[in-house]
Each structure stands twice: as C-alpha cells, then as structure tokens.
C-alpha cells in the first residue's frame, strides 16, 4: 500500500519513513466491477485516491467522465463538509486509499507537501477547464 502511494503525485514528495507513519490515517478499500463507490448526497465520505483500476462518475444518471489511477475524488465534499455531488462506480476492480474527513485536516496540516500537491492538482483542473473553454 505504502509503495503504491509513493508513486502517486499526492504523496510523491513524502519521505518513505513519513509515508509509513501515515499508514494509520489511511485505510484501503476495494470494490468489484459495477459496485457503487460513492452515492450523491452521502456525507463524510473522505478523500479517495485511486491506486489501481478505473471508475465512472455519474451525474443525473449519465456517466460524465472516467477516472483512473493517479486521480482522486471526494476531496471537495471532505474539505467543504458538504454532501457528495455525484455518483461514482467501479468500472473495473478498483483499489483506493481513503483518508476520512475527520483525519484529513490534521493530515494536510502535518504534511504540507501533500497539501501543495492537492492544491496543484486542483489548480491544474481549473487551468485545464479554462483551456477547454478558450
């Protein structure tokens, strides 16, 4: 698990020993193909980081995008303490690392490099969406 996370952009700058220490705050979840991972309206879902496999994001009954290893989801709900806005299902067998909302704030405060990477990823999403509109 720690080895898989070390290659993920969010955790790429965390030293190996610090990453091992994070193990306590992170739990691993697995879903089979077709399973719901998140349902719209759910609260307290936590930050999900895809380690392996592919998921689909469904809004209003329609699959809007696919997400895969290297991506994460649930962060907006966790950071803003709002219900999840979309359904997410497993397109393949999928493994995720989850940091629950209650653990997320202290986790980010204790690991500024992860916070920076999270911020970079959010800003990249914003920049890309601006690029597409241009």
């Amino acid at each position, binding site marked *: 698990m720690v080895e898989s996370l070390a*290659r*993920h*952009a969010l955790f*790429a700058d965390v030293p190996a020993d610090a990453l091992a220490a994070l193990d306590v705050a992170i739990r691993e979840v697995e879903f089979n193909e077709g399973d719901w991972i998140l349902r719209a309206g759910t609260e307290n879902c936590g930050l999900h980081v895809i380690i392996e496999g*592919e998921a689909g994001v469904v809004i209003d009954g329609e699959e809007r995008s696919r997400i895969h290893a*290297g991506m994460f989801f649930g962060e907006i709900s966790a950071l803003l303490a709002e219900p999840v806005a979309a359904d997410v299902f497993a397109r393949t067998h999928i493994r995720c690392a989850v940091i629950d909302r209650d653990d997320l704030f202290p986790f980010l405060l204790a690991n500024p490099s992860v916070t920076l990477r999270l911020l*970079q990823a959010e800003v*990249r999403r914003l920049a890309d969406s601006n*690029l597409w509109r241009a």
Partner: protein
Amino acid sequence: MSRAIDLTVSAAQTYLPIAEHGVIGDLRTVALVGTDGTIDWYCCPRFDSPSVFGAILDRKRGGHYRVAPTVHEGQVKQLYFPDTNVLITRFLTPAGVGEVQDFMPVAPPGSTRQRLVRRVLCVRGTMTFTVEVEPRFDYGRTSHDTVIHENGLVFRSPDLTLALSTPIGLQPTADGARGQFTLEPNETVTFVLETVPESYVPRSFSEGETRDDFEATVDFWRRWIAHSTYRGRWREMVNRSALALKLMTYQPSGAMVAAPTTSLPELLGGGRNWDYRYTWIRDTAFSLYALLRLGFVDEAAGFMDWLTDRFRERAGTDSGPLQIMYAIDGSSELPEETLEHWEGYMGSAPVRIGNGAADQLQLDIYGELIDSVYLYNKHGTPISHDAWNDLARIVEWVCENWDQADEGIWEVRGGRQHFTYSRLMSWVAVERAIRIARQRGLPGEVPRWATVRDTIYHQVMTRGWNQDRLAFVQHYDTDVLDASVLLMPLTKFVSPTDPRWLTTLDAIGKELVSDSLVYRYNIEAAPDGLEGAEGTFSICTFWYVEALARAGLLDEARLAFEKMLTYGNHLGLYSEQIGATGELLGNFPQAFTHLALISAAVNLDRELGP
C-alpha cells in the same frame, strides 16, 4: 512509400532491423520510431544528450516507448506525411485499422519547450492498443522516480524531468508505466512527452490543440521543402534526403550531426561502433555544397557561420588550426567512453559515446572547408574581410604542413600514412583559395600558394599514381585502391576523361565495386587497425555514380544510381553502409550518404539532359 511488415516482430522481443525505422525530430534532437510502434532511440534535449530511450542498443536496459495494437496480427505500413518529417505508422489488423502519428513540434528559436507527440487514431473497426513507457535516463545509468498524476505521469531523474500527458490511465511498472485503451472509428488518444520542471503537473491536451500542433508541424516542413529549387529527376528521393539532412541540423548553432545515433554497428557483432552525434568539418562542408545546389541558402549560411566560428577560434591542438569534429555547440572536448552495461545492437559491443577520433590529424578537412567557402562565396554571400584574413592564415598553415602523414578521411586507427586523398584535398584547399583571391581581388601570397599547389599536384601525379595498377592508390607506399580518389574528377583535380583517371575508374570498378555497390577499400589488403569486416559504403557508391556520369558513362551511371535507390529503406532513408544481403548497417540515418545522394542525382540529371 510503404511496405508490409510482420507485426509479430517487436522490439520488446528482439532488435528491429535498422532499416525498419523512421525518424522524427525538432531540429534539436530526433527519435527513431520502429515499424512496430516503438521509439527505441531518443536523446533529450539535444542530439548528443544522454539517451532516455535506448532499446536499439540494449533491448532490456535501454528503455523504450511503445504504442501498438494489443493483438499482434496483421501488417504495418509506415510513411511520412507528404513532404514532411511527420511520421505515420499504420497497423492493419483483422480487428481494424489504426495509426500512430508521431511528430515533434518545432519550437521557435529561443524556446526550450520540447515535445514528442504520439497521436493514436482508429481508422476502421475496433482497435485496442497497448502503451508501454519505460524511460532509462542517462543511458540507463541513472534511476528515476515515476509519479502518477491525473493527466499522466512525471518521470523525475536528477538531471532531467519528463512529463507524459495522456487521458489514458496508466499503471506503474517497476520503472515505467503501461496501459491499454480501445478506440472506435475516428476516436483519438494523444500522448505528449515533454521536458518540464521538476514540480510540473501534467495537463490535458484537447483534440483541437493536438490537431493545431500537427498542422503547424506539417506546415513548417512543407514551407521548408518548398524552398528547394530542384526540378530534376528523382525529386522525391532528393527532397527526402534534404528533409533528412534538415532533421539532423541543430538549429541553435546551425551545425549538422553526421548521424543522430551512436554505435549502430558497421558489422553485426563487430566492434566498429562509433558515436556520430557530432559535427565533422568534412560533412558540414559537403552538406553546404549539397544544400546550395538545392537552393537552401539559409541553411548554407547557417553552416557557413558555424564553420567560420570554428576557424576563427583557432583553438586548435597539435593537429592543426581545426579539429576534425566538434560538438554541435562548437565545443571541442569529445572524450570517448564505453557503456559497458549495454550489450549493443544485436550484441554488437562496445557501445561508445564521445569520439576519440576528434584529435586525429586529417589534412583533407582544409580542402573541404575552403572548397565550401569558395562555393558559398560564389553562390551565397561574398566572404567578409575578417573571414578572409582568418582563412588566409589557414591557407598559410596548409602550405607549411601539407606534406606529412595523417590518419586520412576514413579515420583509420592503424597509424598515419601519406594518403592520396589528403594530398588531393590539400591541393583543393590551396587551389580554391587562389580562385577566391583572384576572383575577388583579395590580398594573399598567391604566387607562393600557386607554387605549393603545383608541388602537391606533381607529387600526387607521381607518388599517388601506381604505374603497375595504372591507378591512383590509397597512399604513397601501397598498391591498394581506395574509393576516396573518386573525388579527383569531382574536385576538378583531374579531367573526368583523363586516361589516367579512366584506368583508375576501371580498376575501382573491378576491385571495389560489387553489383554497383562500392567498398571504400580492401580491408584485407590494407589493414586499418580495426577488427572486423564492413559493408559497402553508400557515399562511395554515390561518388562512383558521379564519376561515371562525368566520364560520360551515362547508362552505367544511371543503372548504378537506380540500383542504389533500391537500398534505401521504405521511407527513402540510408545508413552509412549496406551489408552483403542488402541490410542497412551503421549509424542511421547518415547525413554524408544523403548529401552524396543529392549531389549524384543533381549531377547525373544534368548530364542526362532534359
């Protein structure tokens, strides 16, 4: 041009033939793209930088970047988008037809942005592709981190960071990543490999953006080749050679590499493996001639500036005012080392980087240099006062130093000799300097130069001539023939119909020519200090064609030229040599061969008339 290729032959299992590659580039570096969809040679950011993908020199440890159909059935065709260096590899399988479009956008001068774009397209049916990206930085000597992002991957090594932007989710492997994706007709997926800062976060590329890059790259190459003034026979091959030469030009300095690869062997399993990612004075001088003949005055000006900088530096060693070769940025240190951890192309060790021949004495380079100045002065821009003063000093040096043994054009490592070719080109150096001085009324010791010129002439005619062979020979103490003397009539040292020349041509035809292909010399008769045999030298074959044409043997010349055209690969690209069974050998593609092709085509076309 295209050719059917067995898809089951993959670089992952074996080495592709050298000929089974196309080349893309951005005037700073190139990538070799195999017909199996594998990039197995890519040095970044410059031609002479350490490799990132080097599987062509070690399939296990070299690193590769492959995009190909998952099912290995069917055929492959590879072609250039017409009049460009945008490469298309087409896979025709039972499930459908798909293609990979490979190109490198040419960044404006001053920009450091460098991208290698692979756009995958489904043409028909349903195509499932596998992508494998396995970089090995610094010739596989440096480890790296692989970081997975939303829009791709970042490979971080101590000296270089590359981002691979893609919408496809890739799974990490031990040192890289792989993935699979399926496309329906007209669907595309783009992979952009880019040099980036360490903290970079890959972004998504829209289809429109990729299409714009594709069109801009196509437009760049088409606008460039449109400057060619050549309208004669074999125009497609001549244009392809010009495009290949341009690919090997390093835009920031105007220098041209001899070839963009290192250590592709002259003989499979042999040790004649050299690093050609440098600029030889000789090659650059000949390139200038070839490109001037096609009307590429800007490129010729770039080469001339580069050459002028070199002879103005006068930072020479004991071997004269110029080195025989330089790095593309003009630096003169090219220490040679061996990559012991690589097995070499099909086991052809050693793999060398750097080039130990840089310090050799090769007196011919002054002739080639001054001949190119003469041509540029005549067809391009008249020589400046300062450049002439520097050149006159070189002529003085040649007048004092021409009469000594050297390593010669073939860079033999078997000891110095009095090579006929080196004397010939020393004659050219002085003779052309006299012509420039007289035509432009420039100051110089012309009477003294003329005396030296005539002394060299008489020496070649007596000591370079072997009365028993009735031929000009390799050096003064041998009866061995050498294809380099084919330049005697081309440089106007001797009339192409002089009886001495015709018997020489006849002797070369009998001894060095095999089915129109020309060996540079008989290695058994003239040991060159290197182990192993070699193939025929493509540049010598083109010189032979020119010599035949100028001697009026037009039918022979034309047949030899047409035969030689069949030895290019499916894209019209040549390496340095051709093996006994027609395979391409040596570094690839080789500039010297392509410029000789241009020269032979232009001159043969002129001799044949309208």
